[in-house]
């Protein structure tokens, strides 16, 4: 789960990381009031969970409250990569001497969290990493020690930070790691961490991604989820504990297991079709979950055929079959369905589906081929 910039920065501030004293607004007149309170030039920033908002015109400098109001009116309601801006952050504008990049994430290969820093912060940091990797400093974090001061000092030293800023920098890195760990984050990022013309470090932008599997420990963070930022189908899927991503194809896929789901999608392509979605019903899925999954797939008007590919381990084929029938009972449809059930209780599952008029298949190739044909209107019964 991703947090908005303002949510991330307010959380950073709880750990003592200095941030601009800004406020959020949902209307242009609120933006005016906030800018007036701040009393100097402000920056109006769209709060959307998408990259590239700057390029899209979602971040604007305003010298007066009137100007802030004008910008707010433009930005609120703006469509950025398919997401509508419903909230803006009004931050005081800051004179910037330098921009630092500072982030913490998981390094799978090292099996550690890693702090990454660079003196070349800002939006071009990925380019810096690709072209001048020596400007990127990494420090792997021992889970037993957290981030000891010496590591923060090593980083400060290696990015060539002025000594007058070391104390602040050590404070910020240590706070950022505690914030990361105590939030069960998989990413915390300050980009840029700026040096102001008053020689202070300030977190100008903030980003956090939380580990969904650990949200049960952090009810206050879990509540921060902005469902406006999800496609409605994804919200429904999450509530039913399904992993779903909408795609542009015509073949709805319902599969147990992420790897098999991806392989199934790849197969539809191989046989000339295109997947309408990624959908993993997970291990041990019961019939109500299967029914919810089917409703989500059928709600997509692009779907011309549905392909069920269930290979039973924890998941039992009979339960999946029940789920399919029960969902079909609730959501009558003309969309053709191809089902392939293998593994635990496969005979029972097939017997249950035999009552319906589904197309069945034994191999995955056969199933994918039949689904593509069905979607493209070829008779396959």
């Amino acid at each position, binding site marked *: 789960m991703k947090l908005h910039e303002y949510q991330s920065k307010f959380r950073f501030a709880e750990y003592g990381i200095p941030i601009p004293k800004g406020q959020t607004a949902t209307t242009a007149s609120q933006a005016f009031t906030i800018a007036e309170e701040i009393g100097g030039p402000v920056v109006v920033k769209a709060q959307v969970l998408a990259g590239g908002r700057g390029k899209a015109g979602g971040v604007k400098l305003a010298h007066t409250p009137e100007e802030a109001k004008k910008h707010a009116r433009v930005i609120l309601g703006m469509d950025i990569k398919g997401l509508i801006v419903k909230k803006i952050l009004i931050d005081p504008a800051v004179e910037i001497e330098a921009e630092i990049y500072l982030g913490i994430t998981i390094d799978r290969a090292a*099996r550690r969290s890693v702090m990454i820093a660079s003196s070349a912060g800002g939006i071009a940091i990925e380019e810096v990493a690709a072209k001048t990797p020596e400007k990127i400093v990494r420090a792997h974090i021992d889970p*037993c020690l957290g981030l000891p001061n010496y590591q923060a000092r090593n980083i400060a030293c290696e990015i060539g930070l002025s000594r007058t800023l070391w104390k602040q920098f050590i404070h910020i890195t240590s706070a950022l790691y505690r914030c990361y760990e105590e939030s069960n984050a998989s990413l915390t990022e300050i980009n840029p961490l700026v040096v102001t013309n008053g020689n202070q470090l300030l977190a100008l932008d903030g980003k956090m991604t939380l580990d969904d599997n650990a949200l049960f420990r952090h009810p206050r963070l879990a509540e921060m989820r902005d469902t406006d930022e999800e496609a409605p189908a994804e919200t429904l899927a999450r509530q039913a504990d399904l992993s779903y991503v909408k795609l542009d194809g015509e073949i709805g896929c319902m599969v147990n*297991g992420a790897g098999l789901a991806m392989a199934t999608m790849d197969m539809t392509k191989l046989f000339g079709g295109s997947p309408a979605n990624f959908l993993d019903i997970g291990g041990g899925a019961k019939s109500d979950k299967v029914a919810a999954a089917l409703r989500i797939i059928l709600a997509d008007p692009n779907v011309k055929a549905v392909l069920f590919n269930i290979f039973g381990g924890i998941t039992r084929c009979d339960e999946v079959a029940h789920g399919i029938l029960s969902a079909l009972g609730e959501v009558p449809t003309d969309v053709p369905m191809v089902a392939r059930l293998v593994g635990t209780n496969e005979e029972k599952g097939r017997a249950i589906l035999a009552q319906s008029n589904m197309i069945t298949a034994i191999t995955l190739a056969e199933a994918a081929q039949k689904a593509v044909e069905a979607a493209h209107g070829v008779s396959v019964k």
Partner: protein
Amino acid sequence: MSILVNKNTRLIVQGITGREGSFHTEQAVAYGTNIVGGVTPGKGGEWVGKVPVFDTVKAAVEATEANCSVIYVPSLYTADAILEAADAGIPLIVAITEGVPVLDMIRVRAFLDRKGSRLVGPNCPGLLTPNEAKVGIMPGHITTPGNVGVVSRSGTLTYEVVYALTSHGMGQTTCVGIGGDPICGTGFTEVLAMFEDDPVTEQIVLIGEIGGTDEEEAARFIAEEMTKPVVAFIAGRTAPPNKRMGHAGAIIEGETGTAESKIKALERVGVKVAEHPEQIPELIASL
């Protein structure tokens, strides 16, 4: 021969009285696995079928001399269950549970490295050596003994491949599901090394998917350390671009992580990569 589990495996089941634990214990016993005990705190002294239940892994190990544990407890308790097994001296721990928080796993993995226990998983289907031991949730009836070693990051996709192998008369030495989580106990290279050293394994199937750099590392290992042929399948060619973790994720992963990167890395070192899972037997036959 085989790797990791066999007839000498003395298995305990953590979470044996739970829904999944009891169901799969029954399946594993029916398969012939030597399950010597189970653990559910507070239910010591009960029985699940003919398997005695203990309150703690320590007590189970003392009573049964177990040398392997499979974990079915809910994700909330999985890290603790793994630590408990390692602390009780279990050399091989197989965690089936999915949804374990990543930072928990970093801590657990560091502890295991200190203790010298091997973990397979979490979020994996487990291990199966045909006709010897089924440790986890792989359906036994799709496997058959033979000379192909299977290692996979996926769950059900592994079954798909094993099923195809068996259908084509190609038996397996051991099928190993290493799990797809960012931090897992055992990676591709470690399993490849074991297959390389196993005298019976003749060919190896590697099943990967997008994300991480484990396949790229496996390719390097195959080029440098392996003499046996490897064929592979990588899932995710049509998947939407991997949702990376901000700039940090992009910096860490660079150009790796996509199906293209993995397939290229493997093909570059001579590994044949299948276009779809059921093509695997064909590629093996062509070796």
